[in-house]
């Protein structure tokens, strides 16, 4: 199988990889770039654990192939904090106890950042609807909604 060169700017840094065309954006991040913050949950677009921002828009990294994003800018959970300073939504997840096991949390936070940026975080009901692509098996939803509300109020 021939490989293909792909260059993606990940969290502000241009990264080039050689990969099989079948490589998902998720596997490119995790297996090639060793950015394992983005999680592989269902691997079929149902759970949202793999949510990343591509050119500022949240998508499921498992349902897209790396080669489709040659030249794109990708933001993962690793790219949200500034040095040791957490992103406001990361801090809010801690404040509001927005997690239990933590597996879905990177996807929740990246998706939540987009939810706020899109202007879809003005009420609990709106957050519920616009965060429905992120499933939490532990059922930490009240804390997740509180965290997004808190961060949206500050931004």
């Amino acid at each position, binding site marked *: *199988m021939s490989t*293909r060169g792909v260059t993606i700017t990940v969290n502000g840094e241009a990264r080039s990889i050689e990969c*099989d*065309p*079948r490589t*998902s954006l998720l596997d490119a991040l995790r297996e090639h770039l060793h950015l394992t913050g983005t999680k592989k949950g269902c*691997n*079929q*677009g149902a759970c*949202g654990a793999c*949510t990343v921002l591509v050119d500022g*828009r*949240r*998508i*499921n990294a498992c*349902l*897209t*192939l790396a*080669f*489709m994003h040659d030249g794109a800018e990708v933001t993962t959970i690793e790219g949200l904090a500034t040095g040791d300073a957490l992103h406001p939504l990361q801090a809010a997840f801690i404040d509001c106890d927005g997690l239990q096991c933590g597996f879905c949390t990177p996807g929740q936070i990246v*998706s939540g950042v*987009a*939810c706020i940026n*899109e202007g*879809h975080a003005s009420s609990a009901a709106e957050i*519920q*609807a*616009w*965060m*429905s*692509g*992120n499933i939490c098996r532990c059922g930490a939803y009240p804390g997740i909604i509180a965290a997004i509300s808190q961060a949206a109020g500050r931004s």
Partner: protein
Amino acid sequence: MFPFSLEKVRTEDEALRAAAAGGRFLAGGTTLIDLMREEIEQPRHLVDINALPLAEIRAEGSDLLIGALARMADVAGHPETLRLHPLIAESLLEGASPQLRNAASIGGNLLQRVRCPYFRMRDAACNKRMPGTGCSAIGGLNAGHAILGTSEHCVATHPSDLAVALVALDATLRVRGPEGERSFPVEDLFRLPGETPHLEHTLMPGELIVEVRVPDGPPARKARYLKVRDRASYEFALVSTAVVLDIQDDRILSARIAAGGVGTRPWRMRASEAALIGKAPVREAFSAAAELAVRGARPLSGNHYKVDLLRRTIVRALEMAGDMA
């Protein structure tokens, strides 16, 4: 996932040449990549069409034109969609998740494959996946399946919300292929399963969806989409209904009704529509029309509830549209 070769194209002509050579178009990928990973889809050659200039959304008079590569989220939020056909935004936002709506294209939304669990279960019989093997849903778990347009070979519903709205709005598709360009109603894109459920749409080999045209913006403003489902968001329809009403002086001049979740294709309810013409927009008229919609319904072992739910969903959607200023 089986190996494939890959080509990125920049123009429609390049795309058509690649498809004529046997390539399979890749747009948002949210259906295709998922099914390739499951090895239900096994394309040998992928043609990435995302660089084609087909993502524009614009008005032409009172018609709304949507490029086939426009993403669901962009169409749903576009000012011309909201001005001319808010029904389309409503149907789009009732579908999928924000992440999927950012990725999935309009052309791909219309061509998405069914969500019947047996279609994805490679150790189960499925005439759509493997013709001649039988239909596991007919004697299986079929609470989510169709009651209209079914055959003894397939009972899967078409999953698109957008398609229901487009069928109600008499939208047309413009496609390009080896034989040139043609336009036809969105409704005619979808085939009934009959004896050939593996054939789902009427595109010719190598044809590319270029654009969707939704006619007559302003008269269609009394239009609503109602979706009933197991959870409030990010779930496929049990029953959905798109209605478009033109009411003047308390009389219904025209009515268009389409339903999702109940048919093997988006289902236009023409008998119900005809029954509403000239009537006052009140519940008695809506109920009588809804009764006509379920004539000919053939429920399966697990989905009798859909007959009554379809009636009620139509009545409620008509009331919601009728209440609009």
